């Protein structure tokens, strides 16, 4: 149990750090930040579901990453990004109620990777298009409808990333032997570094 809680904080913090650093970099340089970050988010969530086999864990990780993203002093449109991260966690939990990581068929692995990547990206994006205006201004359905083709077209790339990544992730050995003291120390150090980096705005 202690290990799982630590893993939630660890992977949530790594995800949050990546969103604040790599996500910002990609966004600034116009390199498909949403698509790449959704692919990374899916990979982290799929791996941890596979390794720890615990429902709800990924939503907790997403909550940590969303909090980090929201309070990162360096990011642009913090609200959109943190809403998107949290919704990505929700979508993952909904899709992975069925333990897809236990499937041995590569067709199912690729198919579920594709469905997960597509859904995580598109629903996360749609959620920001609805919730951000509702909180800060006013939501107009016509804006969402007009922007839908852009969202769906982007989701195609997330689908491909998901289809490629899931079979690869599930091929990683599940049991990585590591001494408890090293596990706890290394985890604590990585968590601390991630939070310091985000708060310092690295």
């Amino acid at each position, binding site marked *: 149990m202690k290990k799982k809680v630590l893993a939630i904080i660890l992977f949530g913090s790594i995800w949050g750090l990546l969103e604040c650093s790599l996500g910002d970099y990609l966004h600034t340089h116009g390199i498909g930040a949403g698509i790449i970050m959704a692919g990374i988010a899916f990979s982290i969530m799929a791996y941890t579901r596979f390794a720890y086999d615990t429902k709800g864990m990924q939503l907790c990780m997403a909550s940590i990453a969303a909090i980090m993203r929201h309070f990162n002093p360096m990011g642009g449109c913090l609200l959109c990004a943190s809403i998107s991260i949290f919704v990505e966690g929700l979508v993952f939990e909904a899709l992975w109620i069925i333990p897809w990581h236990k499937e041995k068929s590569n067709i199912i692995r690729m198919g579920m990777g594709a469905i997960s990547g*597509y859904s995580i990206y598109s629903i996360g994006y749609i959620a920001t298009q609805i919730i951000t205006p509702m909180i800060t*201004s006013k939501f107009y359905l016509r804006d969402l409808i007009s922007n839908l083709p852009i969202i769906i*077209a982007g989701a195609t790339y997330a689908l491909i990333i998901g289809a490629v990544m899931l079979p690869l992730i599930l091929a990683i050995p599940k049991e990585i032997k590591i001494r408890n003291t090293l596990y706890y120390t290394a985890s604590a150090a990585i968590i601390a570094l991630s939070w310091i980096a985000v708060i310092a705005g690295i």
Partner: protein
Amino acid sequence: MSRREFVISVIALLLLATGIASSLYLHSQQINKGDFITVGNEKIFMDDIFKKCRIISVEVNDKGVLKNYTGALLSDIINMSRVKNPEEHKYTVAGPGKEGGLYQKTVEWEDMMNGILTEDKRTIFPDLPRAFWIKDVIKIEVI
């Protein structure tokens, strides 16, 4: 192929098909960029905008750094286009999306009174999140 594999494959392929269809649709949309923007039914040239509208600077928090943006007041641009009772309308600002097609956001008159259009045709709304800032503005619809 088992039934499960078949169902998952079909769903994945259907999603892929919607994605490809959306991409094709976006590529079919020709977006003409020029030195003007369309406001309602009027074509307004950038030169005119920067000659006739008030030019102001706004200070916004840009990734932790306070940054100044200078541009023409959006409410003045609307007034140039002779929209009647501008305060009674909403405004949909549209620019090219990353995948092609148009990305748009609708704002209130109050936002137009605070927002600016920069020389590189980017709208800045100091009181709204970045999702509302549109690059390479092509048109402003009056609704």
